[in-house]
Structure formats: C-alpha cells, structure tokens
C-alpha cells in the first residue's frame, strides 16, 4: 500500500475552529470581495468586512436569545449571502449549523427539526415560513423562526417569528450593551465540537445527521493547497444546494482558505446564463450538469454550418488523440500538441466561451459517478476536468484526479492525508483527518459505519496498479441476476446517460432473469427531436409514448448494449412518463434518480417488463 502522507492544519495553533479562521480572514481581507449577488440585473459585491459584520450580528442575536453551546440551528433557504451569514454566525455563537433543502416538504422538515432539536430556524421566505408554522406545534425545542425575506409578510405578526433585519438589529444592540461579548463568544467552540450537521438523504429510512467537527474543514485547507491551489482572483458560481457537503465545501468553507469569490446563481434555471456572465475559473458541478452541457452543445452543433461542424469535429478528434496520450501519462508529440493549441485557439475557445467555461482553469465533477467517455470529451475540449470522489461521512473529498494525471475510469488517488483500503469483500474503507464524527443520536449506525477508525463507505471498488481508485458501485446496488451474475448497474447507467436524449436511467434486474431499465428522457432534446422529425405530441407523457421516440431510445439502448457483456444488456426499457423535478421524492436535490424510490414507485411497470 502507498505511504500515507501526513497532513496537518496549515494554520497557527490559535486558529483551530471555523469561526477563528473566519474572523482571521475578515480582519485580513476586509475590503476584498467575498461574494456577489445579482439583484435587479446587477452583480453586487459583498466584502469580507460586510460578511463578518453580518455574521457577528447573527451570532450576538442568537446568543442574546438563549443559544447555548452545541445547540443546533437550522437554515431552510435557497442559496444566498444570508445563508452564509447565518452559517458563520451560528458557528461563531458556538452553535451547530444544519441546512435543510428548501424543496423538502413540511413533513421532511419536521423530522429534521425535531431530530436535531433545533432552537432557531432560519427560513427563506413566506413559503418556507408556512412550512415552519405548520409544524411548530410538534417542536418543543424551537424558540424562534427567523425570516430572511419578509416580502408579503408586512401585516403578519407572531410572537415566535421575527425578520432577519430585526435579528440583525438585535445583534447590533447586544454589541452596544456588551461590547466584549463577541470576543469571548467566537472563541467558545472547541476543535472537536460539531460545527456542521449535514443530513444525508437516506434512500431507505429517514435522513441521518452526519456530524462534522471544526477540525476537518480546517484540514481541507492544507489539502486544497496541494491539489487545487486557488487564489482571491478565482471566481466560483454557487448554485448547488448549500445543504450538500459538496457545495458547502466549495462555497462556504473553501473561500476561508483561499479567498476566492463566490457568485450566487439566480436560480437553477439561470445557471447557463450565469456561467456566461461570471465565466468562473473553478467550476464544480454534478454529472447531470456536465451531461446537459454536452448534449446542449451537440444539438447546437447540428444547427451550425457545415464548416463549423467539420472544424469542431476535427478539433475534437485531435483533442481525443491528445487525451489518449495523457491517459497513458505520455507527452503527446510536439506536432500534435502544436496543432491542438492552434485548434484550441481557433475553434474550441469559441465553443467554451459559449458554455461560459473559457476561463475555467479547472472543472470538477462529483457527488455522483460521471461517465468516463464524458470526462474524456471535456479533456478533448481542452478543459481540465477532474472527478472527485467522497461522501458526507468522509467530510467531502477522499480521492481526486491530479493535474495532468487524469485517468479515465478512475476517481484518482487519495487526497493527501487520506488513506484508502479495500476490504476483503471489495468495500472501500477510508481513514483520515476528514472523516466525520458520527451520526447524531444514532450510535448504532455510527458504530456500523466507523469501525477501528475506518469509515465503511458502502461503495465497492479496487485500487489500480497506479494507486488510482476505481469505483464499481454502491455495495447494495449491485445486481445479482437469477442466473447468479453480479452486475454493477451504475456503469451501464452512465453509458446510457451519455446519450443526449437520456437524462437518467435506473437499471433493474436483481433476482430477475435479465436486465431492464427505467429511463428519464431529456425533455428539451427529445422535444427538439420530435419537432425536427414531425412527431406529433402534446404533453410530456405523450412524448414518452410516441413510437418514434421509443425507437430513438431503443437505438440508444442498443448502442450501449453493443459495448457491454451479454448478461449486461438491457432487454427491455420503460420511459418514465412524468417530468420529475427536484421537488419530487424520486430525485435527489442534486438531480439523481433515487434507485430505491424509483424501484418502489414504478414497481408495476418493472413487473410488466418481466
């Protein structure tokens, strides 16, 4: 096994918690831009000083209203600067910060609020307030609900509800009366205290609250510096839910180390425009976004002139050749490199500009497996695209591709300080300073997950000869057909998703004679296909039933079938006929189909395929 590099916090000893690091940065970077928010069409800048001031007011107000060290405070909002003010404020008051997905129903929110005994609950607006009011009777620990955006609530008053502005004022007032309070308060948290509580969407059973200490996010500073050095000149677009460990690491914690600028996307729908406006230098997204970019580009290409198509194809074929060399850790021949540089300047740069990725020094895909073909395609486009592997329980990233050493089909070597080993049954085990503390109020699950300091990930994989980790699948997702063959569905699913017409797929076949698939079509692209080929349709459902669309998907499935072993071929498939959104239980907040849910919900359909 490879020698594990020891890693230590890059900060002096007195900076050992997130609040301490945060205020160190506020003092250091005062006038620098910390984030930008688009309002009425303008990107407004927010400095570190302002960020610090707001967080301080939140901390003091919560303290004055009775927040004790270790109390949990919840935030239920879309991403915005206030989210981060609250996050930092809560931790500065010695509290534990927990995000709840704004798409969660009030029942789901009720579970989390009562499970973590939340004392204060920040809600984005009227809609989230209504959910909170609906459930507050069952929440004896809840002291206050704070509303970030009071629009439409002017005439509403309730003893338990206060506006964010009122909270800030109260913080201000506390500071006037007791100017020394804050200095002691922000030193209250200890390195091993829980800083973040991250609820993981349990595919079975209720969500579990993963406790992350102050210590581990501080360590990532040292890791980042080695693997993806950033600076205050870097720009990041924040659009995935901050409740998720990935976006939290990138947008809330990352800037504390490197001071890069966070730009809040207006909404998920506007991400393509926002990327073009910001042209981020680091772009982190889930595979679903990378797939979407790819398919949009491929379809735009169909509409472009013949010359443009030829030029693009040529550039990409050269790009693929270059990446083939890189894949084998070889330097491409000088002539090929020169040609690629030329084509990059003349052809690919424009394409990347159209995507908003022309300044991107590095792109990262994570939170779900991405198809190696897609990864390779981005490299052929001369985009430094890397995959990161990790989970909430491992404090975010565990392994990651390194610069110039991206091996397709692997998720790269372990990050510095992280140890990875494969158990006898193939399960991936992780040890290192980033591993979480355990699940809140669930010692049983915790003991199951962390054994002898090793985190049992539930993923199955292997280490290749170069020390890069290869993920096979989730342990419990592995399909054993009635013929006794072990099949890893995610590999096949990823190939299916590579089609511009398929957004997501779930392969089924456990205990069955053959494999089938439930497929979610890409509505935009399929509608376009239908229009171009004069296939009449009315609604989304009718689109999924059109014989021509079925034939199109069948061809895509056939193409995938050709590349896999015979037992791995998809014999039948069904197109999901409702347009699922992240509001639906079948989809995770990062846009993946939930296997267990889908299996249950479409049981009849699945049964009918056998």
């Amino acid at each position: 096994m490879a020698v594990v590099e020891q890693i230590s916090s890059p900060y002096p000893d007195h900076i050992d918690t997130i609040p301490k690091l945060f205020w160190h940065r506020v003092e250091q970077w005062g006038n620098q831009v910390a984030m930008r928010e688009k309002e009425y069409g303008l990107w407004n800048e927010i400095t570190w000083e302002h960020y610090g001031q707001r967080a301080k007011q939140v901390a003091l107000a919560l303290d004055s209203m009775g927040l004790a060290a270790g109390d949990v405070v919840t935030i239920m909002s879309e991403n915005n600067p206030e989210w981060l003010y609250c996050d930092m404020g809560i931790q500065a008051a010695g509290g534990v910060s927990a995000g709840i997905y704004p798409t969660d129903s009030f029942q789901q929110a009720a579970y989390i609020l009562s499970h973590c005994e939340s004392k204060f609950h920040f809600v984005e607006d009227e809609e989230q307030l209504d959910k909170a009011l609906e459930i507050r009777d069952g929440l004896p620990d809840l002291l206050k609900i704070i509303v970030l955006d009071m629009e439409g609530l002017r005439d509403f008053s309730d003893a338990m509800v206060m506006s964010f502005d009122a909270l800030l004022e109260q913080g201000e007032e506390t500071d006037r009366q007791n100017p020394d309070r804050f200095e002691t308060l922000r030193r209250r948290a200890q390195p091993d205290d829980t800083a973040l509580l991250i609820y993981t969407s349990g595919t079975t059973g209720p969500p579990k609250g993963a406790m992350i200490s102050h210590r581990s996010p501080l360590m990532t500073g040292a890791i980042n510096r080695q693997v993806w050095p950033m600076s205050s000149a870097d720009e990041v677009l924040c659009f995935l839910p901050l409740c998720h460990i990935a976006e939290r690491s990138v947008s809330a914690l990352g800037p504390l180390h490197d001071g890069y600028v966070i730009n809040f996307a207006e909404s998920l729908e506007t991400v393509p425009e926002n990327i073009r406006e910001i042209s981020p230098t680091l772009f982190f997204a889930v595979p679903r976004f990378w797939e979407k970019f790819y398919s949009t580009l491929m379809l735009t290409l169909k509409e472009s002139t013949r010359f443009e198509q030829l030029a693009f194809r040529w550039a990409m074929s050269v790009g693929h050749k270059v990446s083939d060399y890189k894949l084998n850790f070889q330097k491409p021949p000088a002539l090929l490199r020169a040609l690629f540089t030329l084509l990059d300047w003349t052809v690919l740069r424009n394409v990347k500009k159209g995507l908003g990725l022309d300044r991107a020094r590095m792109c990262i895909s994570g939170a779900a497996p991405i198809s190696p073909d897609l990864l390779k395609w981005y490299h052929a486009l001369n985009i430094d695209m890397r995959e990161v592997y990790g989970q909430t329980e491992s404090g975010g990233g565990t392994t990651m591709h390194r610069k110039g050493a991206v091996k397709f089909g692997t998720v790269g070597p372990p990050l510095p300080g992280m140890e990875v080993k494969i158990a006898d049954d193939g399960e991936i085990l992780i040890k290192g300073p980033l591993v979480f503390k355990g699940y809140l109020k669930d010692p049983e699950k915790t003991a199951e997950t962390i054994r002898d300091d090793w985190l049992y990930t539930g993923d199955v994989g292997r280490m290749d000869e170069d020390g890069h980790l290869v993920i096979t699948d989730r342990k419990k997702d592995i399909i054993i057909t009635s013929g006794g063959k072990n099949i890893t569905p995610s590999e096949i699913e990823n190939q299916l998703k590579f089609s511009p017409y398929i957004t997501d797929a779930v392969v089924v076949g456990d205990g069955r004679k053959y494999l089938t698939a439930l497929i979610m079509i890409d509505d935009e692209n399929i509608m376009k296909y239908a229009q171009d080929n004069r296939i009449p349709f009315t609604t989304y459902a009718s689109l999924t039933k059109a014989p021509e669309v079925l034939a199109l998907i069948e061809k895509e499935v056939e193409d995938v079938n050709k590349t896999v072993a015979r037992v791995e071929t998809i014999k039948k498939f069904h197109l999901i006929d409702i347009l699922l959104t992240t509001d639906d239980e079948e989809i995770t907040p990062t846009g993946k189909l939930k296997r267990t849910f889908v299996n249950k919900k479409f049981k009849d359909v699945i049964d009918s395929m056998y």
Partner: protein
Amino acid sequence: MPLLRVSNIESYYGPVLAIKGVSLEIDEGAIITILGANGAGKTTILRTISGVLDPEKGTIEFMGQKINGLAPNRIVSLGISHVPEGREVFDDLTVRENLMMGAYLRNDRIGIREDLETMYGYFPILRQRTSQLAANMSGGEQQMLTIARALMSRPKLLLLDEPSLGLSPLLMQEIFQIIRRINTEQKTTILLVEQNARMALSLAHYGYVLETGRIVMADTCKALRENEDIKEFYLGVKEDSIRGARRWKRKKKWR
C-alpha cells in the same frame, strides 16, 4: 378521422418563436378549449389555423386536407371561421351589413336569408339593432355581432378567441349559453381560447393547457377541473396556509 389535426406547428412573430411545436386534434362536434396565461401562444395557434400566420414548421389538416399555406379566404370557404379577440366589427357598417360580410363568400340567397334569421334568433338584440352602425353598439353587442358574423359563413369549425373578454358576468353567461346552443343545435365544432378558465372548462369537452408555446397538459375538462395545478393556477382555488393568507405559489408540475 378528426375534423382538425394540428401537428408540430411552430410560428414566429418576427424573431419570437411564439409556439414551439404544438399538436392537437379536434373531433367533429366537440368543443375544445385551450387555456393559458397571457402570451402563452393561444391566439397564435388560432391565427395559424385560420391562415393569418403561416407556420414555420408543421402541418394543419382539415377534413384530411392540408390547409397550412392556403390563403385565409380559402380556409374560410373550406369551413373554418375565426372570431378574433377584441370584437373587431366593421364600425362604419350597419349590423345587417356586418352580418352579410360574414356571408361574403356565399351566393345561396335563400340559405343566407335563413341563416340571418337563425342569427337573429340566437341574438335577438341584433334584430333590434339591424340598421344601426356597429360602432354605436355596446361591447357585449359587438361581441355577439362578431360571433354571428363568423357563423354566417356556415363554418364546420368556429375559432373563438376570448369571447368573454371585458364582458359583464351576466353577459358572459349569456354568450356562453349561446355558444353551447350553437354547438348542439348547429353541430358546429368549436375551438375556444379563453382566459376565464372556469367558464371554458364547464363548457368544453376537452382541454389543452398551453405554457410558453408548449402544451403541458391535455385531458377531458372534467379531469382538468379536478387537477391541482389547474385549480391553483387557473381556477384560483387555493388552500389557505396556516396563516390564513398565502401569496406564494407552488411549482407547477402539470401531471
């Protein structure tokens, strides 16, 4: 075979793609409604069917014959009559002259006279105002006049664009009753575009919901009336929140 079959039509207003691929079918004798917010593309669909606009893509078949690309007057003579939005009467003509304009393409004098009587039967007020200038009539009377004028070409399919717009509730009721009678008595097939979703859904048999140029729902009006999204976004039925007042809207799902 449906009376009208619209397949994959796309129409532009200048550079703006107003309908992005719409397909629908209308069976003979039915009342079909298209619901949708302002700017969804409802009127554009009607204008494309009646030939005022040519679709960029797609086909329109009427009684099995392709009609897109034909001049509007040819389409009228085939049996499609369009009642445009906004009560567009010929101001300087009398009521009777207006009605006769509707029969412009016909030359069966007896038939025309009979139809004129039928129209006066449906809309008695038009008989009273027969020689009055259309400009001097009230909004409701003008609306009746445009409907009657359209029927004077003895259409098989009547395209009705917002007939209730700007009318008093009572008058609206009256117009809708007449539309229903025309459908049952004259066997005229009707394609109704309407902002008043409650009225439209109670009158029509089948409905399409149009959002930004695309059909997002299609079902019988009975089913549409029961749909949660239709209730909230078109019928204004809202479950009150715990505060007693809810301003925010949930996301549309259309299923």
